[in-house]
């Protein structure tokens, strides 16, 4: 805590005698904390985007990797085969393809190295093709288990009597550029040669094959209509509340204040019934028209209009402007920030809304779904394809994020101000 408040004293003043370290030490600490927190905040989004660019097989890798990898193939004898990284005996790493030809190998070791319970986990001293070793026909008993004894040719040309721990098939791998370099390995245990590749085609697939293009269009239309409608009604209502006196004004204002207290769940059942009655069930209009009224937005505008000096309005009245003219010519141009803030809040609300669409158009044919609903459908249909599901999530999440980056100022200032009032 001591670290936090120190920098509040401006360090440019002459009386500030603190050293460079005293100023920057705490700051670096703060930056470290803030930076690691930002990583936590950003990570799910980064994960979403990188996963949306992966292949289906790449997603299910454990341990997980962040970046999308794709195996590199090479041509060998007319076939396109995946490349593996093979560590040669001299320590060099060669990229090889699996020819698919198997050879039986014997894995030999000494009696003291053998793992009796699971021979496959034994420390192996040498492995050679089974044919090159000769079975001595004798067995040796280690810890109650009998192991065959082989005479195994060693690298230096000598032979040695060793126990056969286990047998196994090894694949023949070949360097496609240099076919005389050959290795025998188990390809499942080898790292594949991969490069980072972004599969943009996931987006194409999600948009066209999974119907998210329709949902995107629907969401956009609904969001723009609701935002436009709310801003217009709020401008008019906010002006009436802030600049006019009329009978019933206080009562309506109090009623509006009260509506903010009412949670939406109270309205959801009758509103659903009303939509059914007038035939708006499963229709996009049910997501637009009932949402044009906003007590919250009306207040926001009222609060903002209150801060506009009365003189401006009086001058306009003298110029012969009507009430609507004053609103359009004087107030609207001055309330850019307020309109921006409200548009953004409404935009987010409409774009992200889920419960109401679920109830009112959740059962409709998929053409009328908005993005949030389509995401649920997509998740259920592509339960085993997280890359596809997260591509859908990206389609739903990225447009507001881009808007945020563009209009960040209005977002944060606007929301910070609403909290204070």
């Amino acid at each position, binding site marked *: *805590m*001591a670290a*936090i*408040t120190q*920098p509040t004293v*401006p360090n440019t003043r002459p009386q500030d005698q603190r050293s460079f370290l005293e100023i920057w030490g705490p*700051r670096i600490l703060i930056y470290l904390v*803030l930076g690691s*927190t*930002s990583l936590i*905040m950003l990570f*799910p*989004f980064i*994960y*979403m985007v990188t996963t949306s660019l992966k292949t289906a097989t790449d997603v299910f890798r*454990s*341990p*997980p990797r962040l970046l999308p990898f794709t195996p590199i193939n090479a041509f060998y004898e007319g076939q396109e085969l995946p490349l593996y990284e093979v560590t040669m005996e001299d320590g060099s790493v060669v990229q090889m393809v699996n020819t698919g030809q198997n050879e039986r190998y014997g894995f030999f070791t000494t009696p003291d190295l053998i793992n009796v319970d699971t021979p496959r986990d034994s420390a192996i001293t040498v492995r050679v093709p089974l044919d090159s070793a000769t079975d001595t026909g004798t067995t040796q008993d280690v810890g109650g288990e009998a192991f065959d004894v082989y005479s195994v040719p060693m690298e230096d040309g000598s032979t040695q009597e060793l126990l056969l721990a286990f047998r196994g098939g090894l694949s023949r791998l070949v360097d496609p550029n240099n076919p005389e370099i050959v290795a025998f390995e188990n390809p499942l245990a080898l790292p594949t040669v991969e490069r980072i590749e972004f599969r943009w085609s996931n987006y194409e697939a999600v948009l066209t094959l999974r119907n998210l293009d*329709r949902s995107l*269009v629907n969401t956009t*239309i609904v969001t723009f209509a609701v935002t436009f409608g709310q801003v*217009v*009604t709020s401008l*008019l*209502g906010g002006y*009436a509340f802030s600049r*006019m*006196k*009329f*009978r019933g004004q206080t009562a309506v204002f109090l009623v509006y204040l009260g*509506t903010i207290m009412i*949670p*939406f*769940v*109270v*309205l959801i*059942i*009758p509103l659903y019934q*009303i939509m059914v009655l007038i*035939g708006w069930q499963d*229709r*996009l*209009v049910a997501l637009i028209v009932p949402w044009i*009224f906003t007590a919250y937005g009306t207040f926001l505008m009222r609060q903002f209009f209150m801060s506009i000096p009365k003189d401006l309005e009086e001058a306009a009245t003298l110029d012969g402007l009507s*009430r609507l003219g004053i609103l359009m010519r004087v107030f609207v141009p001055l309330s850019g920030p307020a309109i921006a803030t409200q548009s953004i809040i409404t935009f987010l609300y409409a*774009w*992200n809304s*889920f419960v109401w669409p679920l109830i009112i158009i959740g059962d409709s044919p998929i*053409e009328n779904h908005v993005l*949030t609903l389509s*995401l*649920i459908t997509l998740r259920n249909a592509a339960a085993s394809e997280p890359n596809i599901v997260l591509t*859908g999530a990206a389609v*739903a*999440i990225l447009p*507001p994020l881009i808007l*945020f980056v563009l209009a960040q100022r209005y977002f*944060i200032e606007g929301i*910070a101000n609403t*909290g204070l009032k």
Partner: protein
Amino acid sequence: MATTARVEMARGEPKHPVSLLLAMVWMVIIGIGTLFLATQVFQIEAFFNLGTFVPQFLGIVLGLVGILSLVTVPFLWTLNNNWRIVALIMNFFGLGFGILYTGHVSGMFLGIDTLALNIYRNAWLLLGFPIGYVLVWISGRMDDLNSAKDIVQKIGLAVMGVALIAILLTSGWLQYVAENPGAGLGQIFNLPTIATVAVTIIFGVVGSIFMRNGELFGETILEREAWQGWLFLLPNFVNFLLFFAMPLILSFYLSFTDYNAISRADWIGFDNYRRLLSLDFETVPTGTAPTDLADRHFEVSRFTVGANDIVIAAESPGFWRTLATTFRYCILLLTFAIVPAFALAMLLNAKIPGIKFFRAVYFLPSIAAVVGVAMIWQWLYNPIIGFINYWISGFVDVLNGLGLAVSDPNIQWLTDENVMLLSVVIMAAWQVIGFNTVILLAGLQGVPKDLIEASTVDGANSWIRFRRIILPLLGPTTFFVVVTTLISGMQAFSEMYTLFGVSTSDARLTVVYYLYLSGFQQFDMGFASATAWVLFVVIFIITVIQFRVSRSSEAYRD
């Protein structure tokens, strides 16, 4: 009123322009028509299964409107300005409702579906809007004296207008309106549409007749504000009446009925509330198997007192369990979403460069749709390929490397009943921390600096400064953050729905989920309405308590 009377006296016999007489005739027609409609509506036996209350209520409201409309006529004859305002507002409300109804009956609203279906076939037309906007923007930057400014602006607006018309023409929306399949008549010129349009137009015309006759009625500027204010409020208010007030009343009514969307709703008094809230207690020896008590009460929970268990049973055990889950969720959410937000806000309040960047980054999660976020976390939480367990394993490895024998917990985030709620809370907290931070930071920046400096001079350390000065001054902001977090927490639904899908285990469900299941899966809508009102009362009580607490802590500050 006194002024209008004087005006009348001065003029002697009032002279009525023909338009005003016609408007008065219209008021009579509307009055009689509405009254007739009211009697018709009032007599409807079963109004879409909603029971007799709804038609009776609507009938009374319509009747009152009709009477009001008739009452205005004699006062209009005597040129009473107050009643002119009433008539004027009535007509403009008629216009508002008429426009909405025209949109509905003509198929303009239902045609939005067609618009959405076809709009991307000619998506390139949408380019007209940015192009037009850029032109208008350029014209705004041009020199005032330059005559080209006007031309550029007009071209820009024209481009946007043409784009709009072209989109409407190509989208099939207009064709839909013309064919009007929604009305089932297959024609644009069908009687309901024509009648609605005609009535709506007459409402508008009569309204403007009243509007223009201010001088005749001796209207003052203040009196003019009376109707102008209502006209400005009108678009807002019509929607409020139709889509807020009406459902609200209906919801309250339905909570006293056995409404189930299929058969007729009958008034059953407080039965839904009784069914929802009734509790029963019984003492049984410890360890006795769960008992279902008499009167269809089912065990919810039990406490051990001495050798006995006190069993709490309820008629709707699901409600109590989900309520308990909701409270647990809220308490966890408050801890996870506000304490870190406080810490972050304190850090961000340091006057160092780059703060705005961090603030923006923290805010990002609150912008994303809950549904999408849940999809991401679902895979982050995956026990095998998810990053969270991967990191925990890595951390465990580090601890083991330090010589501590720790076993990998391998948490099943989304299936272990003990962890599930925490999983949701972590995700939800991740989403709202940034929002809370921004608001708390704004509050912190409002704390007067001289106060803090004075306390520093007085020798207060950071903790005392935080506890004694910053926290009390932040009272209202903290109140706002706590209340918004609580209210959203009490209504949590999407998070659970998307992470877990439709399930029946109460341990992971919230009250809204319970309401959703009873209302929209079992169609027990009267009961679900009662649940909604109980939830509202709970939220209201919490808010009031919160308000009291925050006020008393503010009093302490003085």
